[in-house]
């Protein structure tokens, strides 16, 4: 049913091929085939493969990558995914690609819809970043790479804080929280929003320690008043205190952003995870109903 045409990527546990879905001798569409190397993981089938299979089988949404099929070939697990030729990181980094505020709004809207769909199914993505937001030929943005995803845990379960790529990691993760929530995904989207507006990474820490400093220097160190019990984190006492940026400072940094855009970004980047906006509040933000309208996906760069 599928042919592997060209290797397009390789990681520790998987090789990705560009392939084609066949119907008899007629080519139906391009697909990406992720071949999981089953022998590389000493504990049997790799956890990230299990997660991708588990969650993508349950999530069907225009803004979540489609798992087309799964098959076994010579003892290797092959995930057939829809082919998505570009990602947001490529778009941001390529200075020859010009995009507008309407384009940013469109991408953000699609990303938030995908995240909302995950969250209403009680699934955390835990690795949102520009190169995991893939772009289809029709312009639709899709959440991809569910290798770190998991269901929202039972209350007594402890989670690892070693999730999300460093620059997109929420402050509670930086502090080592073990009972975090969907708020970590919203933080990541907030950082991506900032990056879309700036076209450079917004909070690029050099290492895990530096990430805390970079984050608080940009957004202010959280206090007990703003974030109850934040001082209970063991690493809290070792951090420097920075003031939160004023609205004026944010306006100067994000020159082209409207007030509603800044409100939304600030809501997604609230330090206190209790106060941070959820996906519904983000989607209902005035930002999405003010001009300019979000670009039609088919018209996006």
């Amino acid at each position, binding site marked *: 049913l599928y042919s592997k045409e060209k290797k397009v990527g390789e990681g520790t546990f998987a090789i990705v091929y560009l392939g084609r879905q066949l119907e008899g001798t007629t080519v139906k569409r391009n697909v990406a085939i992720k071949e999981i190397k*089953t022998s590389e993981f*000493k*504990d*049997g*089938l790799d*956890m990230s493969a*299990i997660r991708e*299979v*588990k*969650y993508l*089988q*349950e999530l*069907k949404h225009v803004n979540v990558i489609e798992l087309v099929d*799964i098959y*076994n070939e010579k*003892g290797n*697990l092959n995930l057939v995914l829809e082919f998505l030729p570009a990602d947001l990181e490529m778009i941001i980094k390529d200075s020859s690609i010009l995009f507008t505020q309407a384009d940013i709004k469109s991408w953000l809207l699609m990303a938030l819809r995908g995240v909302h769909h995950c969250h209403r199914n009680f699934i955390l993505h835990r690795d949102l970043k520009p190169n995991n937001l893939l772009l289809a030929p029709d312009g639709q943005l899709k959440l991809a790479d569910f290798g770190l995803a*998991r*269901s929202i*845990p*039972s209350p007594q*379960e402890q989670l690892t804080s070693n999730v999300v790529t460093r620059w997109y990691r929420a402050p509670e993760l930086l502090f080592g929280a073990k009972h975090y929530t969907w708020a970590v995904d919203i933080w990541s989207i907030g950082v991506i929003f900032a990056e879309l507006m700036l076209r450079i990474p917004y909070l690029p820490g050099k290492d895990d320690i530096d990430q805390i400093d970079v984050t608080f220097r940009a957004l202010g160190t959280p206090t007990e008043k703003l974030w109850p019990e934040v001082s209970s984190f063991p690493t809290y006492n070792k951090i420097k205190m920075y003031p939160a940026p004023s609205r004026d400072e944010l306006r100067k940094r994000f020159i082209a952003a409207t007030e509603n855009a800044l409100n939304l970004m600030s809501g997604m980047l609230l330090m206190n995870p209790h106060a941070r906006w959820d996906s519904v509040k983000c989607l209902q933000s005035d930002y999405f109903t003010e001009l300019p309208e979000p670009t039609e996906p088919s018209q996006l760069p």
Partner: protein
Amino acid sequence: FRSSSQYRIWSFTKEQLKEKREQLSSKVSALVREKIERFLAENNSQLSNEEINEIRNKAIPVNAAEELQLITLYAQKIQLFGNKLRLPTEVVATAVCFFKKFYLETSVMEIHPKEMFFTCLFFACKSENYFIGIDSFASKVKKPKDSILKHEFRLLEGLKFTLMNHHPYKALHGFFLDIQMVLMKKVDLNYLGKVYENCKNMLNASLLTETMYHYTPPQITLAVLLTEDEALCLKYLEVKFPKTAESSNSVGLYEKVVKIIRECQKDLS
């Protein structure tokens, strides 16, 4: 739930499930008989008449009902062993579901349930984010690593690559909360706590029945609640789904729900 793989792929009517089991059993029984005949033909000169008769009399493939008995027995053993290992409730439930689903697609005559026992437990741990390294797991269950890992892939295929399970425990917790609000001040909370615990034990037992294929998790939960305290359950449902003027001449939601959960209760018992 309607978009979940549990509904789309693992829900059956009773007739569909029976037919599925019988078809599998029949197909594999035919293969087993073929193998036996081939064996007898190839070894005719080496076997005595007595031995040939013994084989013909005793090497009989198990039928669908017997297979189900064996599967249920081993599913129960998985529960007991999982509890002995102090695995979380949902991990044990997932292991049981994996095991049962696997044997809807594969006959016990093709792979002995003993072979899949620890594989299902280990894989359930991984799937439910309760990761135990293979070395540690193998040492706890006192089995060689290879014996646990060798069928992992086959298990995944047998599960049709669907790993999400909706167990009835969360639904029980949900009803525990909703009953408090709906029947506010009419139910003693300590008593409700005891009902919750008893229902949870019944839900553990329900995993060994066929109800997981025929009913949704909340329906199973309500059936168990009906068994535990019929008056409480019916009172809750009456208040929850009151008769309206529109429904006075037709079957209301209350009647529909009660009908389904009584059927489920009967199947559970």
